[in-house]
């Protein structure tokens, strides 16, 4: 059976119907966009930073194999175990083996989109390992059995009252106590014992540096540092595209990351991991999972520059009004819509259409990914690969034919019988019907511009292009 494409539009209908959530979601993310703007205005060199960040990333990606091997050499000499995972299954197996070898049954982890991408939690659960997310938002999503709806603020679509209900269910707290401080305290009380007694810890990694063989984790809650240092076994899962050549390059990205993401100058914690502490061990799992293939896609490889700041999501008017879960994918919003189809073209064939291609995303992107142009390009690829719904494809085909035939087109505009007998009226009208659901149609007019022109400029406009050309040259 063919897999069904994600129905983003239907999920958006439900999201929009819930006004309190819609209003909060839109306002919260718009506030992040505005804070990002304020930070941008404080740095006169902002556009220069974006250009540099983009150039560093493009250089690193163009020389990816070399930098990955340089990192491996240097990391090993720092005492870090380096593993290579070709895909998600490979990644999960590697992590599973590390845990099994140490008899580890409990794992605490900080937020990592790559582990979501690899579907690590169910894999480990089936092997008797208890995984506890330590990032507050990610933990809320774990308890609610949902994907993160945003790559930086995973539970941004939830109100505090939702969190209170989830905590009541899992932690036995008062379901009506929705004070954020009380909720944070409930999470702290529940998480601390788990953290202190965990057998192993796991983090993601925002950047890894080839010349030093080290990696960097940026968080605001400090949970990554607990996950990394308390248990004595630290596994860091990082996508291969996150490499930067030199330590000096990091400054560019650290300055851009949190300003673009939350509109704060820097994350509360920017932790550099240089090697295991005495008596403990450190593993880095470098994950490909489709990245090498994406690197070979002429129109889409620059999506690998992404530093996962979420600025494109915060600014996206569609994302703010449909919510991350409506994308039905690990990566949502504009960046998700251009990388998800590389994982599964059919399932995510609808996502490049969940956009007005307004271009705001491209212009906030700190590494200058031409997101809206890639959305535009993806649509062409999806049509070529027969992923467009039949009716829409037929309508475009017939519209295209009509637009090439002035007489037929004119008849259609004038609404004559000729047009109606040539157009698939039923299909067309059904397809256009949604316009009127929440909107009025434009009022009918007495005459078209075309007919006004013929009445008011009776001698003009019918010259052949050849005569026009001659006149122009004369």
């Amino acid at each position: 059976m063919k897999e069904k494409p994600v129905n983003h539009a239907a999920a958006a209908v439900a999201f929009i119907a819930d006004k309190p959530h819609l209003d909060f979601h839109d306002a919260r993310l718009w506030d992040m966009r505005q804070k990002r703007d304020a930070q941008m205005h404080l740095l006169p060199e902002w556009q220069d930073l974006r250009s540099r960040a983009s150039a560093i990333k493009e250089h690193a990606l163009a020389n990816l194999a070399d930098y990955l091997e340089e990192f491996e050499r240097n990391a090993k000499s720092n005492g870090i175990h380096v593993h290579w995972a070709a895909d998600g299954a490979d990644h999960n197996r590697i992590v599973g083996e590390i845990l099994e070898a140490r008899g580890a049954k409990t794992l605490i982890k900080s937020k990592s989109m790559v582990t979501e991408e690899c579907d690590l939690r169910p894999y480990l659960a089936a092997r008797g390992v208890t995984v506890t997310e330590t990032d507050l938002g990610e933990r809320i999503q774990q308890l609610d059995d949902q994907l993160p709806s945003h790559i930086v603020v995973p539970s941004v679509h939830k109100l505090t009252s939702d969190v209170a209900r989830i905590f009541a269910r899992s932690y036995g707290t008062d379901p009506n106590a929705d004070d954020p401080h009380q909720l944070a305290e409930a999470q702290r009380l529940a998480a601390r014992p788990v953290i202190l007694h965990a057998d192993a810890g796991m983090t993601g990694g925002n950047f890894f540096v080839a010349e030093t063989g080290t990696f960097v984790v940026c968080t605001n809650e400090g949970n990554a540092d607990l996950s990394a240092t308390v248990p004595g076994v630290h596994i860091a899962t990082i996508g291969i595209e996150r490499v930067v050549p030199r330590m000096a390059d990091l400054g560019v990205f650290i300055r851009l990351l949190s300003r673009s993401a939350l509109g704060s100058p820097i994350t509360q914690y920017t932790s550099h991991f240089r090697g295991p502490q005495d008596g403990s061990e450190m593993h880095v799992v470098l994950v490909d999972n489709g990245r090498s293939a994406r690197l070979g896609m002429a129109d889409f490889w620059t999506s690998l520059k992404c530093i996962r700041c979420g600025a494109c999501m915060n600014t996206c008017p569609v994302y703010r009004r449909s919510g991350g879960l409506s994308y039905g994918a690990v990566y949502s919003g504009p960046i998700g819509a251009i990388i998800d189809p590389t994982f599964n073209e059919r399932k995510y064939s609808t996502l490049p259409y969940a956009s007005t291609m307004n271009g705001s995303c491209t212009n906030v992107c700190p590494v200058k990914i031409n997101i809206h142009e890639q959305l535009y390009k993806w649509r062409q690829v999806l049509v070529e690969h027969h992923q467009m719904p039949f009716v829409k494809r037929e309508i475009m085909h017939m519209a295209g034919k009509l637009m090439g035939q002035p007489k037929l087109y004119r008849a259609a505009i004038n609404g004559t019988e000729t047009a109606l007998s040539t157009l698939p009226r039923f299909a067309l009208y059904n397809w256009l019907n949604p316009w009127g659901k929440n909107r009025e149609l434009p009022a009918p007019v007495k005459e078209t511009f075309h007919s006004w022109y013929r009445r008011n400029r009776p001698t003009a406009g019918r010259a052949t292009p050849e005569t026009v050309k001659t006149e122009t040259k004369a």
Partner: protein
Amino acid sequence: MGMKIGLFVPCYIDAFYPGVGIATLELLERLGQDVTYPTEQTCCGQPMTNAGCVSDSAAAEALFVKLFSGFDAIVMPSGSCTHHVRSHFDAIEQTDAVRHVRANTYELVEFLHDVLKVRDFPWAEFPHTVGLHNSCSSLRALRTASMSELGEPAFSKPMTLLSGVKGIRFATPARPDECCGFGGTFSVTEEAVSARMGLDKVRDHFHAGAEYIVSADSSCMMHQQGCAERNRVDIRFIHIAEILNGARQ
């Protein structure tokens, strides 16, 4: 005598907003231009290409080039059609005629502002408070105004032109650069999000005190007007060509 100008009137303007076509024609004539509207014109091909169906816009693009390649300049009261002709006219072979058309197609505001360099519209008076809506094509593709995403020095070609109209006042919405949600076929395939964005847009202008939303793009306004009427937001719509041509309301 001015240039020989080919006037392109987008399909939805032809069918629903003939007054916008008339104002564009009269304004250009008033400014001494020799304007012709080739009556066989249909569409620029944008709807098909934006949906990804590039080959289906070949016939429209070929017809467009056939009708317009003889003109010095092609002017249209639409940012998105201009963007399509200039940047996305890729369904047909790139002949000299195609290149000429692509290089000499202008959206009305940029033609007035950059080519004719008009600043005063002494015949125009519009004693109302207006909120300016820049379509995303005009704003981020044609760059007719500065965008908030880049933090660049403020400029606005449509605002500069409108400032040459007597009596006009401006209201500034809270999110001036936010897309209104029209998006072509997006308006039907993602009806709920589209209509919600449109409603938020017209409310933003209304709360800022605008009596009118003025724009260089009738497609955005067709959508916004539909949202405003359905939700009884008391705001009116007018194309920039109509104000600059001296419309009295």
